[in-house]
Structure formats: structure tokens, C-alpha cells
């Protein structure tokens, strides 16, 4: 029993040290922070309502070239696996959402696109450093893979990761 107490105290100490240095808001294996945002039509969506489905959460902006490159890959992923329980959610971080509307209409995107243009609460929650930021979230709501930036290779990797999570 003493051993358990000692182990617990060590664990508690590590935990408090981590919180003291201000650990990142999320990382691989942790629950994706929940949020609700309006889509381009003004309808609110909440991330936790997609629990039990695999979610690809993508943060993007119209001024980011790599973000535009990622969109067709995400659309193809969505079309291919939507029936198997995949949801793709894009969060636009532009200051003006009308630019996002124009781009989404031009690119013929069918998955939900949300806007974080007003308070940037969600952008802060996910500590956006580099765009696009794409998270692959499993059916339990845990972040399983994080992609910062976008390339053909990372797109292919994302496809494999999604297929693997859908099969779990």
C-alpha cells in the first residue's frame, strides 16, 4: 500500500509540474477540445455531437495557399468514406467569412465549413501556429494524428490513417 501511495505522489507531482509550465492545450491521444461554431449558413455545429464517428478537423484560411491545396483531398476523403462514418469539418479562421463562402462555392465543397471569424475562441483553443492544421479524431473523440501544413505525402498519409480508424 505504501508503494501505491508513493507512486501516486510521484504521479501527482509530475502532473502539477506539467500544469505549472502550461502544457499544450491538446496532443495526440488526448480528447479533442470541444467547441460549437456556426457554419456558413448560420447553423451551429458542435464537435462532440460527432462522437462515434471519425472526424477530420481542418483549420484553414483563404489567404493560405496550402489550405486551398488540401481542400480537394479533404473533399475526396469525405466523398469516399462519408457512408462509413467519416465526417470532415473545416474551420475557417478568416476575419471576414464572405471570402470563405466564395472559395467554398468555387471549390464545390460538400462537407461542413464553420467560421471562427468573430472571437477566435476556437483558434485559441487549438493553439493555431501553422495553417492548415488538420487533426484526425477517432470515434471516442481523441486526437490520433496531427498534420501541420499540407503536402501530397501528408494527404496520402491522412487517407491511410482515416481508413485505419474507420476499421477500428
Amino acid at each position, binding site marked *: 500500500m505504501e508503494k*501505491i501511495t508513493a*507512486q501516486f505522489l510521484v*504521479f501527482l507531482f509530475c*502532473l502539477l509540474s506539467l500544469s505549472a509550465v502550461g502544457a499544450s492545450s491538446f496532443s495526440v491521444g488526448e480528447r479533442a477540445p470541444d467547441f*460549437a461554431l456556426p457554419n456558413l449558413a448560420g447553423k451551429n455545429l458542435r464537435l462532440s455531437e460527432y462522437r462515434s464517428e471519425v472526424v477530420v478537423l481542418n483549420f484553414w484560411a483563404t489567404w493560405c495557399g496550402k489550405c486551398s491545396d488540401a481542400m480537394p483531398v479533404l473533399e475526396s476523403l469525405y466523398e469516399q468514406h462519408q457512408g462509413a462514418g467519416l465526417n470532415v469539418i473545416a474551420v475557417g479562421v478568416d476575419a471576414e467569412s464572405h471570402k470563405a463562402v466564395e472559395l467554398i462555392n468555387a471549390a464545390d465543397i460538400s462537407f461542413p465549413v464553420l467560421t471562427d471569424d468573430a472571437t477566435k475562441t476556437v483558434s485559441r483553443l487549438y493553439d493555431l501556429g501553422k495553417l492548415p492544421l488538420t487533426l484526425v479524431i477517432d470515434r471516442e473523440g481523441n486526437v490520433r494524428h496531427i498534420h501541420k501544413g499540407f503536402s501530397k505525402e501528408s494527404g496520402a498519409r491522412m487517407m491511410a490513417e482515416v481508413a485505419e480508424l474507420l476499421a477500428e
Partner: protein
Amino acid sequence: MGNTQMFKQIVCGLTLILLGQIGNAETVGGANDLATLDQETQSLKNAVLELNKELFLLEEELLYPANTQVAVFVSMDVGEYFALDSIQLEVDGKEVSNYLYTEREVGALHRGGVQQLYLGNLKVGEHELVAIFTGKGPHERDYKRGATLQFSKNIGSKFVELTISDQENQLQPEFVVRNWE
């Protein structure tokens, strides 16, 4: 890192430690007596569950002591003249919650659900609560209304309810903030 998150991690950590002990026990006792091992495992699992329960109660008591606790709930009665989009809650001029409602959540409120919008602490004395409701009113028009409650916080928990209902005679929504006695 939030306190709630920390408590959950402590519980997970304890669970892992105790399961580690189970693992050790399995290596030692596995060859000798499986039945005893099974009993020990079961009792350890029960201990973890009991500990988990106690930690959650402790968390509740520590973060929201009964003497200072204030909880705000939301309910909806019919709501035909108002499609709820968000509620912004201010206590003593400070925003404490800004909640966006999804279709599913509004549906749950329509079916009689009651949502806990806010749980916090307030000291004894006079306070002001302001709730700002945003959504679509009659004829799909953008609608924003506020409701205020001046209340006195005594020793003991305080519960406040925000109710959205219909004023049939005026074909308008009504927003009421009231104390739960």
C-alpha cells in the same frame, strides 16, 4: 489545465497504478491460484471505482462549495416563436458563459430537457444576472432580447432558471429569469 481535467487525470493515474499492481499480482499468483487472483482483481477494481466516486465528490465540494454555489439552468416551454441560437450570461457585469446551441440541443430543450448552463461561485450579498438570448423570432427575423434578475445570495446553494416560453396572445416569445425556491 483545468481543475476538472486534473482530477480526471488523477483518477486515470490511480487506475493505471492499481492496474499495474494487478499486473504484478498476475505474474506472481497466476501460476498458483487463479481463483484468488480473480477475487483480488475484482476487489481492486471495486476499490478504484470507489476511489473514483470519492474523488468526484471531493472535486465538486472543493470547486463549488455548497455555501457559495450558484447554478443557472435553461428550459424551454413550447418555443414556437423563437428559434434559440445562443445565450450569453453575465453575472455582475462579467461574462461567465456564451453558449451556442445546435439543432440537437434545441430539440432536447423542446422535449422538456433542462440544461445546466453555468455552475460557479458567488459570495453572500446582492448580485445581478443578465441573460441575452439570440436567435430567430417570429417571421424568421433576427431576435435579441435580454432578461435581468437582481438576487440576493445567502449561505447555501442558489439555483436560477432561464425559461423561454411563448406569449400566445402577443405571438411573441417571452424570456423569464427566476429563482428556484
